[in-house]
């Protein structure tokens, strides 16, 4: 299954956004100027509560959701993304998808259109979605036995249930979600298969086991011999039949191999990646400080580095969502 690859699960959720409107108290968005006096009801009948679409409110809530430390203009001291409260997700993102982009008319060839009697003045259909969707995509660790989505849903619910409610309550049917298990069930309902996951934890490539190559060669030999034999013994139509069958077997073989999950890359889970970043940074500090040391001083300094930074142990390490060693 392509959603699961190399020990990581690539969760893609497309949740339909609620088509109804919601009455919200008429107050400025967070950070907006406070109004001096409340709006008089005789001037605006919607003064107390303003009807807003869930699409609008979702966009506003996402704009207020804290992000990770993504750019150098992010506040390194400020609160970090709620997704940094678990140690399962490498990346998580939300996108509102209103519909397919419209590329204009499908172009045609004037001569062909004239011959086929197509009238260029007749409008072509324009594609649209049945509703706006919220895309939630997360790259998560899937090393523990069991359902990775269930484990992730439990982790999310126990660390950021409030934020999940704020975002997902604008989506269809989220109202019934009340715990990790029901969140997992809801995510599964909205899930689509991730057909092209991207994994960069096998930098030197995985050595392909030799067996498939032998199998493929054997298959090729059988197909060739079978085609020739059928052609000689029965006739050309039998040869063609065997050839088509062989091609189909080869196609199924390739697809079957392609659908298999890549094995888990060593130390590619989030805690290991964070520890690696931590060691990379602290070792650079060590290397800078050790410049010009004599052998005895270098030995002592490295001993101190090992004792303080514990390269083989899970801690100390770098906190998720926040670069740098504190």
């Amino acid at each position, binding site marked *: 299954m392509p959603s699961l690859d190399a020990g990581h699960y690539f969760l893609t959720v497309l949740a339909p956004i609620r088509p109804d409107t919601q009455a919200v108290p008429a107050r400025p968005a967070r950070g907006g100027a406070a109004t001096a006096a409340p709006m008089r009801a005789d001037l605006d009948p919607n003064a107390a509560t303003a009807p807003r679409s869930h699409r609008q409110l979702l966009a506003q809530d996402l704009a207020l959701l804290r992000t990770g430390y993504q750019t*150098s203009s992010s506040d390194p001291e400020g609160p970090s993304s709620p997704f940094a409260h678990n140690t399962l997700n490498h990346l998580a993102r939300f996108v509102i998808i209103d519909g397919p982009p419209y590329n204009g008319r499908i172009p045609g060839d004037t001569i062909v259109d004239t011959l086929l009697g197509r009238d260029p003045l007749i409008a072509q259909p324009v594609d649209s979605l049945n509703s706006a969707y919220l895309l939630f995509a997360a790259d998560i660790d899937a090393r523990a036995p069991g359902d990775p989505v269930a484990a992730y849903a439990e982790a999310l619910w126990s660390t950021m249930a409030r934020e999940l409610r704020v975002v997902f309550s604008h989506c269809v049917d989220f109202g019934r979600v009340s715990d990790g298990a029901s969140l997992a069930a809801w995510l599964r309902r909205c899930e689509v298969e991730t057909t092209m996951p991207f994994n960069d934890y096998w930098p030197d490539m995985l050595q392909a086991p030799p067996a498939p190559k032998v199998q493929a060669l054997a298959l090729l030999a059988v197909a060739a011999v079978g085609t020739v034999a059928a052609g000689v013994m029965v006739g050309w139509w039998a040869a063609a039949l065997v050839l088509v069958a062989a091609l189909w077997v080869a196609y199924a073989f390739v697809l079957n191999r392609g659908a298999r999950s890549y094995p888990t890359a060593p130390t590619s889970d989030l805690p290991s990646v964070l520890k690696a970043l931590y060691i990379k940074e602290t070792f650079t500090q060590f290397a*800078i400080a050790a*410049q*010009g040391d004599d052998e005895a001083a270098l030995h002592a300094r490295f001993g101190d580095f090992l004792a303080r930074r514990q390269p083989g142990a899970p801690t100390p390490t770098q906190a998720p969502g926040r670069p740098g060693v504190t």
Partner: protein
Amino acid sequence: MAHLDLADIQGNIQRPYGRYGFPYNRHLFFNIAEPETGRLFVDAIRPFVTTAEPWDSAVGQDGAVLVHKPPIALNIGFTWAGLAAVGLPTRTLRLFPDEFIDGMGARAEILGDLGSSAPRGWDPIWRPPPPGEPHKPVHVWLSLNAGALPDSSPRPELAAMTGWLEGLVEASRGKVTLLPGHGPGGQNRWQDSSARWEEAPGVGYVPTAKEHFGFTDGISDPIFLGQYAVAAETVAAVGGGKIAEGPYDPARSWAPLETGEFILGLPDEGQELPVATMPAGFVANGSFMVWRKLREDVEAFEQAMKTQAAVYGRVAGMADETEALETLYAKVVGRWRSGVPLMAAPTWSEQTTLLEQWSDIPALRLKPARTPAENARLDDWSRLLTGFRYGDDPGGARCPLGAHIRRGNPRDMLDPKLSATLGSSTLTKRRRLIRRGLPYETDGEKGVIFMAHCASLFRQFEFIQQQWMQYGLDFESGNDTCPLVGSRRDSDKFVVPAGAANDTPFIASGLPRFVDTRGGDYFFVPSLSALRQIAMGTVDPT
């Protein structure tokens, strides 16, 4: 050779005036309060604008020299607000690129002008005034380049021309203002810059190409098609042009860059016409220019280099303090302070030997009439200074990956096929800048007035500044910035990989910021035809 209408192109794009006998450069900035008066002001200056035509060589039908070298080279440029102030049509104004409309101050985050370089600390001319005072932003840049008298002082025409400009301002009855506000207290009415001088025995004072940190500046400028005559172009293309795909051959791989990388209205390296604005006749033969005043903290630089060199000398096993210090200087920039690139001489002793072999060069340069053999020797020296590539040094053993010149002009090093035999500049040739400028030293502050010409401020200047000077990923250097001009907000270290000079790597750390921005803006440097259109108010002739 491409034929350019050199008489329509402003001369500062074509020539580094400093090398053509103009060691002084005075920058004056004006504000225009009324379009009509502004156009009259432009029209008064228009006849004196120096073009890119060759001096004292082109001869007319009657045998007389067509263009004499002027005592003052004058050039003019406009900010976007300046073009609005002289009343350009809305269509022309709105189609200009975003970064030009924004101006340099608004692009501070992209340029790394933060902290001590942030616009709020710039010279007063570049900042909004205190509340209550009228805001007069910079609209027009005027540059006066002047020669020097034998005692190294500027020729009197500089003061005379300045006085003439002041007269124009006076005649405008307050509609054109010569903007003061240069220097830390804003006390200066213009910004002067000049070459640094050196006393040559028997000759007197000669201008040098040194900036205040002691490095030779402005060596490797890009060369574009049509910039020089064919023979000169062939020499200058080596090191200054682009490197073709295919096996590297120093004699055949180099070619001049397409003119449209620097001059608008002509095809560029993407085989397109550069995007600037409309109408095309207003844009053609113009160029965009970056003007930046960069303060150099010479004391901090020398102190930090000394501290680092003590450790570097220990790591590299150099007993000689001067060797350790000079080698570290060279590693930071990629050239020895003499200008010799690390790619030509990776160690102090090799540089010393090389300079001895070429000790005749300074005298040859000063010689008024040279033999063909002497000219050929100067060409060879120029090739040695600029005609190198990084396929010979993929790991930075000679020239560190993060060194200043490798960042500013990575040549072939970003080619994925880079090897001892292959390497082209396909991924870097659209990010070149023609650099102009001279050092300044006013009110106890030292630095350089940096000017750069390009067809796209965004693609060329801002990209180099943001991705190559203030970030290190393209140079396998993570967040490390340029050790010379970089901000230190995200990293304060610089890695010198192991090589001939030091057989183990060295990491300089705790570097302070050495170069701060004191002000500047983006200017459009119009063609002579466009200046006429501005003056006549006929940019949109309909």
